[in-house]
């Protein structure tokens, strides 16, 4: 299969959403090039609202690249170029008039490695609200911080030491702190790039539980290398391979009944 054929004549196998949720993010023929190298060859997918969508696929297939398109974090990478359409609630996010800062307040992100700021736990969570002026008073701010920490199921563990540095928490706690930090600006979408890959099974279980709860209020897109995790937390799954979106559909469907041979092979561990 040559690259040219792959980029032109390529069809993603899709299975529609049985629950028929409204669409939050719509993308069409998204291509990303780093310098000369095309990393994504035209990805079209609709991501439903208030559900968890999992991106799976072998390393280097472009999952993170695609995720970073959705909040335009690719803008910060020198030499990265994005083509195609990405719409958030019918609004083109690559529209030159659009304010990136505002977009990123609506589309939060949690990274693979916990990256708390070297500030107190409180200030970590208060960072976003302060920047965006979300709190009118000190009490307001405190309330935002507390509810965010509660939503991230971290509050009980840290309530006595909010003024201690966030970098002093355990890895799993740090990751939940980062989730709380993202929640604090009340985004509509939360992007998570392998949020559990640096965590032990117990911390992972906590974060997964948390993701499941967050689904009620947020649209979540999660990149993961763990099939079990994708199966546990997501409602929809998209399988990427070599810069293409191969197959997407309801999670149970993709895992039990993949329509594509490559999806089948990946899930059963035959490659990747």
């Amino acid at each position, binding site marked *: 299969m040559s690259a040219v054929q792959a980029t032109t004549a390529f069809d993603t196998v899709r299975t529609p959403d049985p629950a028929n949720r409204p669409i939050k993010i719509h993308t069409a023929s998204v291509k990303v090039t780093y310098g000369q190298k095309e990393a994504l060859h035209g990805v079209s997918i609709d991501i439903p609202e208030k559900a968890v969508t999992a991106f799976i696929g072998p390393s280097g297939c472009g999952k993170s690249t695609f995720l970073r398109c959705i909040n335009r*974090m690719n803008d*910060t990478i020198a030499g990265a170029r994005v083509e195609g359409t990405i719409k958030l609630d019918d609004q083109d996010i690559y529209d030159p008039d659009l304010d990136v800062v*505002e977009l990123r307040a609506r589309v939060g*992100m949690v*990274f693979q490695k916990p*990256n708390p*700021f070297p500030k107190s736990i409180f200030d970590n969570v208060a960072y976003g609200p302060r*920047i965006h002026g979300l709190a009118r008073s000190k009490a307001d701010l405190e309330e935002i911080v507390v509810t965010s920490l509660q939503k991230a199921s971290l509050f009980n563990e840290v309530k006595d030491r909010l003024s201690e540095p966030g*970098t002093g928490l355990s890895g799993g706690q740090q990751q939940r702190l980062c989730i709380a*930090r993202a929640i604090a600006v009340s985004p509509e979408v939360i992007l998570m790039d392998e949020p559990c890959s640096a965590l032990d099974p117990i911390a992972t279980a906590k974060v997964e539980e948390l993701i499941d709860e967050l689904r009620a209020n947020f649209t979540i897109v999660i990149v993961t290398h763990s099939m079990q995790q994708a199966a546990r937390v997501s409602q929809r799954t998209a399988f990427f391979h070599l810069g293409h979106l191969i197959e997407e559909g309801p999670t149970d469907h993709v895992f039990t009944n993949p329509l594509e041979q490559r999806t089948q092979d990946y899930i059963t561990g035959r490659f990747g």
Partner: protein
Amino acid sequence: MGPLWLLALIAGLSFFGFVLGRWKSVVLSGKGRGTLAARPGYYGAYVLIWTAMPALLILVALSIAKPILIEHTVRANLPEQVLANSTQLSLEVSGVEQVAAGLKLVTPEELENIRIGVVSARSVFAQHGLPLGQDVKPYQLTAAGALNLVSDGLDTAVDAAVVAALAFGLIFAFVRVKPRLRARNLVENTVLVLLIAASSVAILTTIGIVLSLLFQALQFFSMVSPVSFYFGTVWDPRFAAAGSTESGQFGFLPLFWGTLYISFFAMVVAVPVGLFSAVYMAEYATSKVRSVAKPLIEILAGIPTIVYGFFALTTVGPLIRDYIAMPLGLGTSGNNVLTAGLVMGIMIIPYVSSLSDDIITAVPRSLRDGSLALGATRSETMRQVILPAALPGVVGAILLAVSRAIGETMIVVLAAGVAARASLNPFEEMTTITVKIVNQLTGDLEFTSPQTLVAFALGITLFVITLGLNVLALTIVRKYREQYE
């Protein structure tokens, strides 16, 4: 043989030893006498070390001992009344050494003539190209003769000892080369010893410098009390005229004030400019701009300070005098604190910017991404996340720059003058500790007068101040490093 010949011999034989040792190990293992415990090169190095090391050690030890022995001989041969005059003793010794050098040049007949007094030694030496300042006294001849005898004897002894050591080391090590020999250990240990020796040189030099400063400074403090030095407000050391007992006033405070005041202005310039350019370089500049602009800024650090001094003296000083000081009626001198501070500030910009740039760049990318992903702008990210994270390191960089500023002399002499004064008016002449050190140490020196010795007291004080700043800076920088590891 001279020392150079000896060194050449040592080098040659050591190399020979290397080849022999290597060869023997290869041959032995080839004959099936066991596999080698190390690669053949190590056996070569083993023989080399055994050949060179003892010989070198003997050579060094005897070279150090030789002058001591010679001085001892000379003293033993000087008459009582010369020895009694202890202040002139070192002069006498070097006089005898010169005569001894002359004696080596003359022929036996000439020597005989000198002995019976037909010709003067001085004129004979002059014929051989060795002019002396004074006539040669008889006791000098005797002492010089003894000196030459001892020195020749010593030279022969050195030659013999070195050759013996070479032969012993070479044969001993060669015999010991066997496949089972742990040749690597000796080589490793030798490398270790060499490394330790190299680092000791630097450390010992520092200790030596401090001790010599300390010794002279203590001498100064025995003449002038530390209280009147450190709390004195008048700097007026007077002249160190030979024989004069008049002692001036050595007040440290005006110099300390001048140093602080000038450094303060330097920091007022260097910190914001350096920091902002570091932020620009680290966060905003494209790699193309950066690759050009960064070296350009760093050039500032390479300009000789005398050039800065010149710039201050001929350009900045007069500008400040004519356009600021005179209209305001605050001063009439082209030499002033402000000029020195400004120009010094420009000089240390690269110290601040270059280090801060590295520190800012070292802040993990994940922190930037984390902040940007929350919808912060670049400058918000800079102000609220990156700078606070980098702050300890940046403070360290600034402190290093301060200690550089405090030690600066040339710019101050040319830009701020040499008048010791404590005043708040930045348009007046003032001066710093280092300038006064230079001042007290130029001209005809007598190392017993407080006027000269005060330089050492100033020096050690300055040393303590900058050392303290450096330690503080390094501690802060180290603490910062730990945060991200």
